[in-house]
């Protein structure tokens, strides 16, 4: 049992950035907007979080800045998709390319710098629980914030009036419109919050996890988050489990490498991505009707009031 603790604890830490992005995407997709710009948003978040922390010396300001950058860039996505009715896949891919290029360009000067980011802050009492304590409650504050956010998101979606409209607008925007709510405003709001969370996930990598900036440091985590939304059937709790699973595989392969094996390192590095593909295939195979699997019915479709469907 004891030997599992470091691995599980590492799983949580390396799963957290993916979890933020997945949570954000769940909110966005529940509102009916597909945002494939997660990878780009995470990179922009990682970069802006890092630089602002370096300049201000305060990691919290850096994280807040990353959140705001994510909101601003995904507002662009919302403008293209919701207001202009552009193709959401194309717009999302454009955001990813934009984020990748922009963060690399601006970030050139910062490669190799280090910052003092957020440190570990064990939760008093809880961290003392055998096994569970070190695994769950011996982390940085952003990990604890993600626990809270997962619970909050579950409750928000299932039990509040705003959650109800969120579920409805991704399923049948016409019904929401007929009920007198603004489909446009709702979709903007959730796209922006979702983008902010994705950027925060990116900032976790640079401000907390590695405390440095490396070009392309997200290494496809944004795409894994897109897949995890489907794996988690748009449920924050399942998304959290998925994120930790992927984080765990990543942490495990690091350990295997460190222990020294004959398996070539690139193969081990591929593990999380291979797992993504396997999971997606598995889900698609047992897929029956979309209605039961929880995909929002209006996902990816623009809405125009006076146009019939």
């Amino acid at each position, binding site marked *: 049992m004891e030997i599992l603790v470091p691995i599980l604890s590492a799983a949580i830490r390396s799963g957290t950035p993916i979890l933020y992005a997945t949570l954000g995407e769940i909110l966005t997709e529940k509102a009916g907007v597909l945002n494939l710009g997660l990878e780009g948003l995470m990179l922009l978040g990682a970069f802006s979080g890092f630089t602002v922390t370096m300049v201000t010396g305060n990691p919290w300001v850096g994280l807040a800045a990353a959140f705001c950058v994510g909101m601003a860039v995904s507002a662009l996505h919302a403008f293209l998709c919701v207001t202009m009715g552009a193709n959401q896949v194309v717009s999302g891919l454009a955001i990813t390319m934009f984020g990748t290029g922009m963060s690399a360009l601006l970030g050139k000067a910062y490669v190799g710098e280090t910052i003092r980011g957020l440190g570990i802050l064990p939760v008093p009492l809880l961290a003392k629980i055998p096994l569970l304590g070190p695994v769950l409650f011996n982390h940085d504050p952003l990990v604890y914030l993600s626990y809270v956010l997962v619970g909050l998101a579950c409750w928000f979606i299932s*039990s*509040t*009036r*705003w959650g*109800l*409209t969120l*579920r*409805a607008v991704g*399923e*049948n925007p*016409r*019904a*929401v*419109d*007929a*009920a*007198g*709510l*603004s489909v446009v405003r709702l979709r903007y709001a959730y796209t922006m919050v979702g983008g902010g969370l994705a950027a925060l996930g990116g900032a976790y990598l640079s401000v907390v996890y590695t405390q440095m900036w490396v070009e392309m440091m997200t290494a496809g985590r944004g795409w894994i988050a897109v897949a995890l939304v489907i794996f988690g059937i748009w449920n924050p709790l399942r998304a959290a489990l998925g994120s930790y699973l992927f984080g765990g595989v990543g942490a495990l392969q690091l350990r295997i490498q460190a222990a020294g094996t004959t398996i070539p390192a690139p193969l081990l590095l591929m593990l999380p991505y291979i797992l993504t593909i396997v999971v997606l295939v598995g889900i698609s195979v047992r897929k*029956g*009707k979309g*209605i039961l699997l929880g995909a929002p*019915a209006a996902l990816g479709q623009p809405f125009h*009031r*006076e*146009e*019939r*469907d």
Partner: protein
Amino acid sequence: MESERQRPLVQMLGITKSFASVRANRGIDFDVFAGEVHTLLGENGAGKSTLMNILNGLYQPDAGSIRVKGRECRFSSPREAIAAGIGMVHQHFMLVPVLTVWENLVMGLPGLKAVLPKRDVIRKIGELSDRYGLDVEPEAQVWQLSVGEQQRVEILKMLYRNAEVLVLDEPTSVLTPQEVRRLFDTIRQMTAEGHGVVFISHKLDEVMEISDRITILRSGEVVETLPGRMATREMLAEKMVGRKIVFAVDKAVLNPGDTVLEAEGICALNDRGLPAIRNLSLSIREGEILGIAGIAGNGQKELCEALTGLRPIHFGRVLLRGKDMTGRKPMDFLQAGVSYIPADRKGTGLVGAMNLRENFALKNFWRKPYARGPFLSWESIAGETGRIVERFGVSAPGLGIPVRNLSGGNQQRLMLGRELSGTPDLIVAMQPTWGLDVGATEFVRDQLLRQRERGAAVLLVSEDLEEVLALSDRLAVIHKGEIMGMVEDPRSASEEELGLMMAGIRREPAIEGEKAR
């Protein structure tokens, strides 16, 4: 109090609305008083839904004004309309299928508590249900409900929001006769309590039964407003269409020819993987219309799909002119001369985002002269589409516009035109006159009879008992995917007997008769 009674709840003045080149409403005046049912009557595309969508705040009028209890109002969204007491139940429901009934009811409700007050909501639903006879299970998810139940949810939604004026856009076209009776009871209860109701329907008997006043629209203009009790079927139809309508079906006596279609003990599953068709056998000959009557959702759709190759058959065989077609692809059925008119014209029938020409090409791309080698001949496609539009009276601003912009009735005409314009051997028609006005209904029935005279075999599936009785040469009643009995002479069948079979009580002798054939 007296002046309250004389002032209309809602008054629309000089409403005008155009979509691109279509003038859907031209200077329409319309009002509703408390305690009355005011019916809008008109052909497909006359502008009824458009007018009501304007009243509901969904569309903005180009000109004209709306007054609610004498006060001038502008509705820029449905929320403002409902706040002013105007609620609408749309031709296509505005419900969220994965949410429960009670969630749908309170979704978007102004002043709702932050944490959903489930118990209070369910109690209030109970009260409204009792008062207006609208019972539904509040905790059921909407996709589990029948269409009639979904409609009750829509009405409850409006009553829950204290709507004083309720607009019902073709509410009866999706209901069984029993459900229509219940709906009318609800409407009467609502008017007795001082609500005003706007009712839209193409079924003239219903209109005459329920209406206090009737306003007839033609091409976006008001023809006349008259008291309901003065109306007769003939007069309404004539005013609506602008010519006389013959209601009696004029059916030639024919001797059926060779057997075209034979189904032997077929079984098929529905979309949820449950048995929908059980050991069902039937046969249709040339020049014969076989009617299938039954309450909605008893396997009609699955039967049609199984007979057109769209749904796998698990047991049994389907023969077309003696050739075994079991397990063949839909294209094989198409090439064997099978036409299919599905009930969901928006799903299986047409592609909304495609234009008229493309929708025609969808079912004809494989044959000459529309296909030239690997290419399509858009010329001949456009030519034939134009002929269909003319012959079937599809009113559309052009062949290049997306079909979702056509009114429901015009979409139906286009689809019928595509399916009936060739020389099909077998026509499988499900609810072919659904949502059509009287003129168009007459036309479609006439077309089906002509195909029969030409020698086509027709399977006519309809929930409209009157329709199957009038058109069929033989009639089968379906219940839970099984045939309850075969009536050899539909005109002599008693409604009571049919009603029993529709409820699942088997008529044994007819089964014997069918086997002996």
